[in-house]
């Protein structure tokens, strides 16, 4: 997926950026994608965001700066969510988070113009939604949309004020089940394929 920002998602020197977060809860340990548990959807935007299929709840959520490198090292980030009324920690402690999929998607778009009290604002709020409550519908907006981070939830900790989760990319499993020896470039693909027969995401592959 390209991380290029196309010219149609920006006008002159302005665009808007928001992020969508998905945390899968209560999935079984077999990592069966068809076995959908509850999925928590959050956004760091001001109002609800609707991508045409799902609705994302606005919440105070921050995460570490992402880094990428060439060494194929596992990368992990910490995500922090406001938890000041304890709802999220209650949810977290009642469910199994660890090893469940999560992803962060970045949406970049140019806000369309909006007329308020006869004045036209070049870049409006424009919820583009017919619901009674403020909601941004991004499905009909020209946008650049790319996956910023995809991985699994490793650990989490909750205090009265915040809920923090450590997220690992899928690459973290490269370092776990494989034997510690050096492979020839040519045989690498077949060796990985052979290992994947019995090991998948660090666990026994039972499918």
């Amino acid at each position, binding site marked *: 997926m390209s991380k290029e*920002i196309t010219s149609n998602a*920006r006008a002159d*020197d*302005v*665009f*808007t*950026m*928001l992020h969508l977060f998905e945390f899968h809860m209560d999935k079984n340990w077999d990592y069966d994608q068809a076995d959908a548990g509850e999925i928590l959807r959050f956004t*760091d935007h*001001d*109002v*609800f965001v609707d991508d045409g299929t799902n609705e994302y*709840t*606005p*919440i*105070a959520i921050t995460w570490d700066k992402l880094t990428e490198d060439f060494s194929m090292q596992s990368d992990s980030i910490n995500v922090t969510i*406001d938890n*000041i*009324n*304890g*709802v999220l920690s209650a949810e977290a402690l009642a469910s199994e988070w660890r090893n469940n999929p999560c992803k962060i998607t970045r949406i970049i778009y140019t*806000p369309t113009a*909006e007329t*308020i*009290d006869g004045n036209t*604002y070049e*870049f*409006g*709020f424009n*919820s583009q939604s017919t619901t*009674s*409550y*403020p*909601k941004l519908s991004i499905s009909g907006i020209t946008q650049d949309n790319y996956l910023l981070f995809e991985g699994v939830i490793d650990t989490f900790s909750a205090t*009265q*004020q915040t809920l923090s989760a450590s997220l690992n990319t899928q690459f973290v499993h490269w370092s776990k089940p494989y034997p510690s020896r050096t492979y020839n470039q040519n045989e690498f693909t077949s060796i990985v394929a052979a290992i994947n027969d019995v090991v998948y995401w660090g666990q026994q592959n039972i499918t």
Partner: protein
Amino acid sequence: MNNLTSTIMANHSHIEVQEWLKQSQAMHFNSGKTQRVVKTLMPAIQMQVNYKNLTKTQFEALQTAYEANHANTVIVDADDAHDIRPDVMGLNTSVWAFEKFKFSVVAPSLYSGKITMISSVFFNYSQYQDEFSQSSTYTPVTSTDNGFTNMLANAEPYQVEFSYVNNSIFSNIGQSARHIKDMAGLRRQYSLNWFLQESEFLQLIQFYRRKAGILGTFGMPKEGSISLGSAGKTKASFLTDSFKFSRRTDGMYIASADIVEVL
């Protein structure tokens, strides 16, 4: 969600506003050669509503509104702060949270002060409110101790300042507040200022020395001074190291102390 528009906007003298554009930042591409500015229209607003020369009844209306809503968001249709949200999204989005409450009163009993509010994106729709319930509790402990009021009968303060110790926790999106968690334990805080003859001052400092230590609680009149009314007393204590005084060359004493309710 309570609509405090008439309560907050009644009798105010002027408003000071600071406005932020949310999520405003610059992003660099192509090693910094190209820059794009990230913008959204929805602003965050901090509104400081000022009041001058309020009567006791007018002041107590504001005080009651704060105590009942210090840990929940409220609706204020703040046209004077040019809040654009009710025009764009409806009155249910003109949501605010209390930040500060500070008033003072001097003879002849006219109250002046300010209330600071911050815009909130915790809009008054069930979709926003469902997961995060809010409430405000203020439960002071009453007292029948007359020691402080007896002392005040002789050593009357010339100025009383009112503020609060608020334990609630805010969640923020950008500069705006989101929802609030009431941690209970809201307490009134008073700052009293005296200008006294030596004989009256000695009563004050003796009372302070007897009551300033740990466990030194007493009954504090709600109005801060018995000449302003006597609507009941609550359990209170001196704030540590808050008592200060100076002696003038003419023998008069200037003193001040901070007092906070205890639970």
